């Protein structure tokens, strides 16, 4: 089972130029989604797009800047859900820029997917039920590792 997404792109531009497209809200909107991003550590922001109810997606991606190293690295949390504060996707997006002789290599890693449905299950359960479900949790555990999270 794949637990993360990795993609790489090369640009014939300096890291500063690529960085602009990752951290300027207006430029980000041109290729990603409308947002209220600010290049400030711990800044909470949202991407806003069309809702897909069948995908448990209310049209908002709830994010927080977790790490920011100008022209080199940007990390933010990436959460979404069906609305009313419920979260069904809890993950981390990491952008890394590496300067090369003739441009910049940009790497995207989308990872740290947490087993939210599982957590919600826990929340929905009574204490007695809790104990029984732990057996299931053991079964699921091998699929939930690898999440370095907030």
């Amino acid at each position, binding site marked *: *089972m794949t637990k993360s997404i990795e993609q790489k*792109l090369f640009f014939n*531009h300096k890291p500063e130029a690529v960085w602009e497209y990752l951290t300027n809200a207006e430029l980000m909107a041109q290729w990603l989604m409308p947002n209220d991003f600010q290049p400030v550590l711990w800044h909470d922001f949202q991407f806003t797009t069309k809702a897909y109810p069948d*995908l448990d997606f209310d049209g908002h991606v709830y994010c927080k800047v977790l790490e920011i190293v100008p022209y080199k690295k940007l990390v933010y949390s990436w959460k979404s859900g069906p609305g009313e504060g419920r979260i069904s996707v809890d993950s981390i997006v990491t952008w890394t820029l590496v300067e090369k002789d003739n*441009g910049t290599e940009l790497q*995207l890693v989308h990872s740290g997917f947490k*087993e939210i449905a599982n957590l919600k299950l826990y929340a*929905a359960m009574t204490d007695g039920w809790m104990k029984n*479900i732990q057996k299931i949790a053991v079964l699921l555990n091998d699929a939930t590792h690898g999440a370095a999270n907030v």
Partner: protein
Amino acid sequence: MAPQTFDAFQAISDPSRRQILKLLSKERLTINALAENFDMSRPAVSKHIKILEYAGFISIEDIGRERYCTLKQDGFNNLQEWIDFFDGFWKSKMNKLEMLLNSKSGGKK
């Protein structure tokens, strides 16, 4: 397709359905055996079982004349679907970024 509108959260929102999952966490059971644990009618129990099946929590297997219910992992874990979704999502976004940046005048000096 009404049953498919039951997602994992809705499926477990009902105490009877949680009770069914609880019973199945110990062993696989026939629908009849499950029904014995409830005051409601067998069709009512069947309906709850259907919802749990659609939401991916259990699978039903016909053995002889009995229908056996077994706990399944899918209802607890549809992460792979999300990962596949985001893989395509980022591919298309990255293409867009590539087009934007490459059309930008004055590349690296």
